[in-house]
């Protein structure tokens, strides 16, 4: 039986450095609601459960179909996209919403996922094709390679894996699973492979691959079921070979 009312407990924070507080809201149930439509309802009339007038809750969202990653937040303590967090699929009781804890809060449920994007720059998660002449079409990929790479290309840098990773925190320099998986992706690309050593150099430093602790929470949390732990193993192999080659040849 669907619930009559939806109760929400939301962790609010007015500014990046300000204190956080809990606010509770109650709104009438409607068919097919997700967390975002709940937040939109609150925005129409931002009054708490206790009848206090408050500010509309701030959150970020874009695609609303779980491919952009922007609306990622902690829903009942688990990192996930709030657009696919359907109210009717959730257990009874209040729904708890919190911002991700591993990224700086901008306001309320909105965080700045910039550290992840910076890490993508550090590991050179791209295929360099700019030049002074047309490079022509790249080499063909086998079907099997395409399928493996496709899995890694589904990453939307939502930050779920970073949120659950015990090695990704303020005490550690670890860049986290998501950027590393992109090294796996671009090192497998037939053109990207030409710069594989640059990416390996980038992840063999402080905060790189060796700071992974194999807790393997990342693969459990990934909403896109990206085989992150396989990427980490594969990069382990690539860095081992590259390291030994350098030791013996340089």
């Amino acid at each position: 039986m669907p619930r009559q009312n939806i109760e929400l407990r939301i962790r609010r924070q007015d500014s990046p450095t300000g204190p956080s507080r809990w606010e509770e809201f109650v709104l009438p149930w409607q068919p097919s609601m997700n967390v975002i439509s709940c937040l939109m309802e609150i925005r129409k009339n931002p009054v708490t459960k206790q009848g206090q007038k408050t500010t509309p809750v701030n959150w970020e969202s874009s695609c609303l179909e779980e491919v952009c990653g922007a609306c990622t937040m902690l829903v009942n303590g688990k990192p996930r996209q709030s657009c696919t967090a359907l109210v009717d699929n959730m257990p009874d009781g209040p729904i708890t919403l919190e911002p991700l804890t591993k990224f700086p809060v901008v306001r309320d449920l909105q965080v700045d996922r910039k550290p992840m994007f910076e890490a993508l720059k550090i590991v050179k998660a791209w295929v360099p094709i700019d030049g002074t002449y047309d490079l022509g079409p790249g080499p063909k990929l086998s079907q099997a390679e395409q399928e493996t790479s496709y899995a890694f290309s589904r990453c939307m840098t939502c930050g779920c894996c970073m949120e659950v990773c015990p090695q990704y925190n303020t005490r550690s320099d670890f860049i986290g699973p998501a950027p590393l998986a992109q090294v796996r992706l671009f090192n497998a690309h037939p053109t990207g492979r030409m710069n594989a050593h640059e990416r390996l150099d980038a992840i063999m430093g402080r905060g790189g691959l060796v700071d992974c602790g194999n807790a393997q929470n990342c693969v459990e949390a990934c909403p896109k079921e990206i085989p992150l732990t396989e990427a980490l193993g594969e990069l382990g192999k690539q860095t081992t070979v590259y390291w030994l080659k350098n030791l013996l040849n340089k």
Partner: protein
Amino acid sequence: MKVSDRSYFALKRLHSLTGVVPIGLFLLEHLFTNSKALQGEAAFNDAAAELARIPYVGAIEALGIWLPIAFHMVLGVIIATTSQANLGKHGYAKNWQYTLQRVSGVLLVFYILFHTWMTRFDSDYLNSVSAYAFVGDQISNPGVFAFYVVGIVSACWHLGNGLFGFAIHWGLATGRQAQRNVARLAMAVFVVLTLVGLNSLLAFAGKGVYPDWLTKPHGTEHGAVVYEGGQH
């Protein structure tokens, strides 16, 4: 201390390597020698004396055991401090393993210091006639016995589960199935080593389990008894 990126990688990889070779190998040897206690006082004391007669034993001990353990310990504690355990929020099986790896490592720092002091430097030990009797006397104290149990289980866990991390760090197990298999192997190593270790501990109290079917070479059922001085 500031280390360059390259040496950081090498140090971390050495940390992983030393855990298996030589420290893992040493643990196997240690459990092997301890298991001699199942064959009685003389058998264990002989085995211990034989170890002391290894050529270059001082160098092997210092460079092959103490140095790697000290290195693994120091870097391990540093690694553990960079972790933000989150078992409470995300209680996945592998997260338990990850957390227990760090907990067992820290326990082992204390255990190894205690154990090395008691059975290597303590004057009572050095003056004792029988190493077997000395250990038996030690573990008659329930607190010490409990600490030994914790130490043995921690060491076996840390090596067994460490093999899982080792296989992924070095890229030996890359696929999901391969990693699953390594995880199973790691747990099997943990269980077997723990049983062997705890049994040898009990042997020092004269309570080791040492049935013929398990401990006699196959085919000797009707032949001569091979062991002398055993307690069974």
